């Protein structure tokens, strides 16, 4: 039996959300995962984190179809029992939603199943706003922030207005737009290590735009882009701190920013 479709679950009962935490959040910044879980619970969802590894995007974009297909099957099996699958990343959600179907073309055993699965996969912030109808968050963050539109979320999933709408409801926060907010930061997954010089040139321009805003905090919806931009800003000695947008929206923006030590010096 297939799980209930999103429309059925909208009729009042608590939807069960499988949180796809993403490799980077899982390994490097678990606080983003907890922030995502908190936001989802506040939006009336029951959150579960099934055992998982990776969506397969690095393999997919490196031309290794066999590995990406194997990982896609693994993700589908682990998550298809939930009403929704939500990831705090437009890149991973976009990989699943926009590209998984390509991996199963011509395979009648999977195609329908994959399409049904992809229909319930969402990026976190757009899920909160577009699916759960969240219009405001109960969070405070003192200061000026600027927001970078990560490419996959923006172009594959239409994530642009949703994070800005919710950020506008955060107490004490003011958003100042950077120039070329929708231009790539140069991360590009394996691109940044395959062509480090080009990547550096691109993220250098991005850092110029970020610094020019005078904002104290850089926000974005993808940890990969954030690590790239934060790493560049820190290497330059910029005072701008970088956080995942979920941390701020969940009212968890008081911990160490990306690349900062924990206050006690404890890991």
């Amino acid at each position, binding site marked *: 039996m297939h799980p209930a479709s999103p429309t059925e679950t909208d009729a009042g009962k608590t939807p069960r959300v499988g949180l796809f935490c993403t490799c980077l959040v899982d*390994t490097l910044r678990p606080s983003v995962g907890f922030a995502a879980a908190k936001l989802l619970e506040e939006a009336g969802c029951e959150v579960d984190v099934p055992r998982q590894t990776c969506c397969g995007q*690095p393999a997919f974009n490196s031309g290794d179809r066999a590995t990406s297909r194997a990982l896609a099957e693994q993700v589908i099996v682990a998550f298809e029992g939930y009403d929704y699958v939500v990831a705090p990343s437009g890149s991973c959600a976009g990989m699943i939603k926009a590209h998984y179907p390509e991996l199963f073309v011509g395979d009648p055993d999977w195609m329908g199943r994959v399409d049904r699965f992809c229909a319930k996969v969402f990026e976190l912030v757009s899920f909160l706003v577009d699916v759960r109808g969240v219009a405001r968050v109960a969070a405070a963050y003192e200061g000026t922030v600027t927001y970078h539109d990560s490419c996959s979320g923006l172009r594959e999933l239409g994530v642009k207005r949703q994070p800005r709408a919710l950020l506008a409801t955060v107490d004490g926060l003011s958003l100042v737009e950077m120039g070329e907010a929708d*231009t790539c930061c140069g991360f590009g997954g394996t691109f940044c*290590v395959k062509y480090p010089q*080009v990547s550096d040139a691109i993220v250098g321009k991005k850092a110029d735009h970020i610094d020019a805003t005078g904002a104290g905090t850089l926000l974005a919806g993808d940890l990969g882009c954030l690590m790239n931009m934060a790493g560049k800003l820190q290497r330059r000695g910029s005072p701008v701190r970088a956080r995942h947008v979920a941390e701020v929206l969940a009212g968890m923006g008081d911990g160490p920013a990306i690349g*900062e030590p924990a206050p006690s010096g404890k890991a």
Partner: protein
Amino acid sequence: MSVEITSPAFKQNVAHALDDVNLQTALAKVGPGFISRRLGAADKMPEFEALRDSARDIKNHTLAHLDLYMERFEAKVKEMGGHVHFAVDAAEARDIVTDICRRLGAKTVTKGKTMISEEIGLNDHLAARGIEPVETDLGEYLIQIRGEAPSHIIAPAIHLTKDQVEADFRRVHADLPPERDLSEPTSLLAEARGKLRQRFLAADVGVTGANFLVAETGTSIIVTNEGNGDLTQTLPKAHVVLASIEKLVPTLEDVSQLLRVLARSATGQEMSVYTTFSTGPRRAGDADGPGEYHVVILDNGRSGMLAGQLREMLRCIRCGACMNHCPVYHAIGGHAYGWVYPGPMGAVLTPSLIGIEKGANLPNASTFCGRCEEVCPVRIPLPKLMRHWREKEFERHLTPAPQRYGLGVWGFFARRGWLYRPATRLAMGALALLGRTRGRFSSLPLAGGWTKYRDFPAPEGDTFQAQWRKRKERETLARAEAAAARGDAA
């Protein structure tokens, strides 16, 4: 000017490009200008997105029936007194043009802008046979006097600064008085015009490209902003059109739709300044026009694409929007790509035309930001087609060994969650401990590509999945204790 291929040396090309101060100065203006102009033009036209669909459909239809339209085009050109020549490869195309020039005793050949000429290396070929090619598009003229190749398909000299152009004119134009002011673009243009006027009049053969070939009328069409194409093709004894097979469209009505997306996507203009239709040679009673009209239609590997997964690339109408919006192109310019076609469209097309072995870097040198696909007037899924090449490279073991090995190790773990989870916990625990004082790393083994330019954040500690399970266990325990407590109370 030549067909020398430096794509295999892409990484060295990149290093040169990033160190080239003049190039970086010129490139800084590329992105913002093109992007805002295209956006302005698209915003003014409510039906722009629908027109893009229509443009895509016209090209798809044509490609599906290319043989029929090709026959129709050939028949119409002949009917109008012209000649169609089919060239399987670059060498054939060069020979066809050379034969025409020789038969007419041509000493100089004026040239409108044509990328096919670059693809077949026509200028060097003609020059080696005593026939002087003269580029008449301002950008092409500039790079010709510098001995360079175009760095952009619609703005060939976009890699140059105004100061460089002035210096080149003073170097090459022997009669240029030193006191003449060339500080403004208009004065540079006037200088070039003055030089080219004599060349137009003296030319024996005029070579142009074609933006479209129209099957129903046998017409070739060029769009320009300088009017040089008109002089190139009407004044000499013969007009030779160089085009590739995918330039064909069925009707003039189709052309009118494609023109509406072409200029808007390219330069943000509603229309280019000149749109010139050429049908056959001069007829009796015509005021002007060439005595002969030839169309050379080049395949050079494209019919292979027609049958395969890269067919969508043949929709390309060469507007340049993909490179105008590409962060990689903005960083390194066009020459780094190492052959005729740069940017995202080049990253797909070049491996088809010169082989994936030589073009291996190009489809990899993309962040897959998707902006090229977002702006492509004929909706070519450029990232998907670049990924297609990456798959071919992976299948054929052309992917560089370190990347392949790294991917293999990662894939091994990612496919085995029971190994992946403890392994990542162990690794992150160790890294977190190492990085706990600073919170980040300035160098990391095996991550030099990252840490040479940026810091890498230290992990927070245990993995999210492990922490989540611990928390759930604590909650379950707490609930059980609470239930037990209630039970005691009852």
